[in-house]
């Protein structure tokens, strides 16, 4: 931050902010780019960031409902009113330094196409003194395809004039390429140790710290052909861009290969060194891309692709342990408010890492034999239990099932927990893990209720263990079983406990093992409904949920989903659900203020979805917020 100059950063941010606001009022928008600036760059780019039609995307965004809500976000409104003068002053300073208004900068210079590309430092390049500035200084070029060539010239000349005044201007020399001549401006903002090259050709503006790069780009722009492959022709670039949203405003491409040499060689003066596992991953990685969609919804996506054959076995095992589709969503109601679901193949991870853990315990010299044996037994127990769970699992907050919420002792919501279980086989006789764990869980929940409930309250009437027999989602089948023994009907055995009085809300606990799944929750009816839920009625198959999911993720492995609109309504109508979380000494006014802040945050958007999809050769990541004004006016 210091090295960049704080005031410079503020100028940049103010320009971005002002551009966002002002561009909304402009009546025009840019046509789609006809050619990519990637066609002008050499293929050995290390990393590049590309903006396409930013002005149009900005305009779409500023006219969207989402932007309207952000603009009305109370803390932002307060900040703008407090800092409006400063913002205007910074915008004025920016105008002095660049010679353009923030709107002109945003729409005229950056609005069509912009690309920043970086290469690793050149190992030996006498022609480019910039590399002498520091051993790790990369080479960079900034390309701007302006909407107006005159505007570009004006900015360039303004910058050169300012550098002349400050004494940093070195020279302006004619540059002839392919029969065309342009002026190359050279400045030395850091003295003799660095040089910057600025040039404008038509509506193409270039800035770089490496003169050969400038010449290469101009040659391609003028001659439109080159013997060397361009970035646009690089297969990794093409594949990476195809993985992103076609209309993304911003894109990033990271090409690992140009950096390989730097990764393998220790850096002079650096205390840290590259971890070997990271080198293994780096070696296998083909490319990384990322994008940002700016419009009626905000969504960021990333895609990492690697060569499966090059990946080390350990890395492959770990990635495989977290891969696959999160099936828990198929067990959740389609009106779920909050979902955290994922996949962890515990058995595979244990296969891979437990031997090392055991060896460490057994070989530990600072413990006697009994202690080591105790540690080994403890780990063995944990390993044994864990290896029978997963890979699917998750937790969900949803509305209480229809009917149950009307009971006086029922809450308006329910929690659901699910975990896939592995069946056990013993001499050909299948024994479910459920049989081993069922009494354990029931006893644990009973003890938990005893601990949570106020001392002195008689546990007998408070804790009522009820066995529920059900062959459908109909809660009328709930019956008491005086014998306390589970009864199975249609392979569903549900255990139900009541009497958690100290949580501030009437809550229950129920669980069952069904079809290789442990399902638990705070509503017996909800657990039963989840157990018998048809796939077509589940969250995973619901149209709303799929619409909110990125089209690039067809089978997410891990996800966090928040129905912000529903949570907002829940907090507005039932603020008491936060009571158990509030500190006891918090006064009423503070509680109300906290609640208002929370509700205003939830009002920013109607849904939040973060998802990761892992398969044998890639990781896809998507994070986004969206507004559904039809469902949530």
């Amino acid at each position, binding site marked *: 931050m210091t090295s960049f100059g704080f005031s410079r950063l503020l100028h940049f941010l103010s320009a971005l902010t002002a551009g966002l606001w002002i561009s909304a009022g402009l009546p025009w928008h840019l046509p789609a780019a006809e050619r990519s600036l990637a066609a002008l760059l050499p293929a050995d780019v290390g990393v590049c960031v590309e903006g396409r039609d930013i002005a149009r995307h900005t305009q779409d965004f500023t006219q969207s409902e989402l932007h309207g809500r952000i603009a009305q976000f109370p803390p932002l409104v307060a900040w703008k009113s407090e800092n409006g003068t400063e913002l205007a002053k910074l915008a004025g300073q920016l105008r002095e330094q660049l010679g353009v208004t923030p709107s002109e900068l945003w729409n005229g210079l950056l609005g069509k196409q912009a690309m920043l590309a970086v290469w690793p430092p050149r190992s030996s390049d006498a022609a480019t003194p910039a590399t002498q500035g520091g051993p790790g200084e990369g080479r960079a070029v900034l390309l701007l395809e302006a909407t107006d060539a005159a505007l570009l010239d004006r900015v360039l000349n303004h910058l050169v004039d300012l550098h002349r005044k400050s004494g940093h201007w070195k020279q302006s020399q004619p540059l002839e390429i392919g029969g065309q001549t342009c002026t190359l401006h050279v400045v030395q903002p850091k003295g003799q140790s660095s040089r910057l090259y600025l040039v404008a050709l038509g509506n193409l503006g270039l800035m770089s710290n490496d003169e050969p790069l400038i010449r290469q780009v101009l040659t391609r722009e003028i001659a439109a052909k080159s013997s060397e492959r361009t970035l646009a022709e690089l297969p990794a670039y093409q594949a990476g861009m195809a993985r992103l949203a076609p209309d993304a405003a911003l894109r990033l491409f990271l090409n690992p290969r140009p950096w390989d040499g730097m990764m393998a060689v220790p850096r002079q003066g650096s205390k840290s060194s590259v971890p070997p596992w990271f080198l293994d991953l780096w070696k296998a990685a083909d490319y990384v891309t990322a994008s940002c969609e700016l419009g009626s919804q905000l969504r960021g996506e990333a895609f990492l692709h690697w060569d499966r054959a090059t990946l080390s076995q350990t890395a492959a095992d770990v990635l495989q342990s977290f891969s696959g589709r999160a099936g828990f969503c198929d067990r959740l109601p389609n009106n779920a408010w909050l979902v955290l679901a994922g996949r962890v193949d515990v058995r595979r991870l244990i296969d891979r890492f437990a031997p090392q853990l055991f060896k460490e315990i057994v070989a530990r010299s600072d413990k006697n034999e009994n202690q080591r044996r105790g540690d080994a037994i403890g780990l063995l*127990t944990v390993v044994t239990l864990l290896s029978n769970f997963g890979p699917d699992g998750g937790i969900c907050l949803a509305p209480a099932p229809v009917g149950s919420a009307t009971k006086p002792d029922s809450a308006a919501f329910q929690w659901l927990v699910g975990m896939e279980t592995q069946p056990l086989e013993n001499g050909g006789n299948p024994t479910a893990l459920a049989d081993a764990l069922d009494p354990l869980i029931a006893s644990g929940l009973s003890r938990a209720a005893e601990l949570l409930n106020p001392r002195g309250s008689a546990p007998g009437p408070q804790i009522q263990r009820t066995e529920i027999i059900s062959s459908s989602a109909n809660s009328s089948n709930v019956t008491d079983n005086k014998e306390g023994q589970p009864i199975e009907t249609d392979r569903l055995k549900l255990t139900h406990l009541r009497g958690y009085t100290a949580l501030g809300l009437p809550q229950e606990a129920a669980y069952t093992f069904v079809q290789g799944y442990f399902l638990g929750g705070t509503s017996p009816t909800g657990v039963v409904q989840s157990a018998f839920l048809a796939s077509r009625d589940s969250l995973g198959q619901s149209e709303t949920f799929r619409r909110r999911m990125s089209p690039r993720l067809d089978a997410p492995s891990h996800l966090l989903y928040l129905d912000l609109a529903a949570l907002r309504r829940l907090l507005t109508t039932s603020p008491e659900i936060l009571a158990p979380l509030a500190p006891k000494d918090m006064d009423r006014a503070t509680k109300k203020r906290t609640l208002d802040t929370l509700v205003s945050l939830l009002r920013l958007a109607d849904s939040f979805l973060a998802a990761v999809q892992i398969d044998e050769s890639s990781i896809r990541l998507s994070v986004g917020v969206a507004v559904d004004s039809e469902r949530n006016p």
Partner: protein
Amino acid sequence: MRCDEFEIRLEEILDERLSPWSDPLLKEHCSQCAACRGRAAAYETMLSGLALCEVPLSNDSHFAEHVLAEVNRPTLLRLARSHPWTFAASALAAAALILIVVSLSLRPWNDGSLPGPANIVHSPPIKQLPAEQPQHSDEPQTLDELARAAGDKYMVLVRQTGESVAEVLELVPDLPGSEQFSTGASTNEASPGWAAEMAQGLEPVTDSTRSAIHSLWLAIPTADEDTRS
């Protein structure tokens, strides 16, 4: 017999690895008290279920040797029977904790807190390496040359053997320049965590990129030239 006496007696019986139903006193109480009957049944079911659980030992036969030398099933059952609630609660709590740890922060590769896998590799595949072994007599003299040569040799081995860098390091740990890789195994230093290590690994890229952008950033003159540094 009262219920609290039943519970004490039940634990004693289980300590002896006997079935609750083999004890006449327990049996008599169970015939009168459904709650205690259910509790006795729960203990027996839980312990028999745990005894059926398979331990995953598929990867390394030495693992089985080590563990079985230290642990056997009766020992596990004895522990569970002598302190069933402590055992069950500890197991569940530890299971949850481990699950979280495994989910969120498991570092799959040697993070320095574990002994190097070289200790468990019993047949070092040095012979599988290509004939181009490091020539110690040709070691470069300057630090830069040394490090560069070492890095190149490791990467050559990685490419030619198809093994990971970590595995090559373990098989040929003495090659000059091995200190460039932060295995942490020999120093026992606390590992910074996978996220920090990833950031550390990306440093060559981020440093170069940051410095390159910084150099372009200087094209915009500031009113206050003092901030330029």
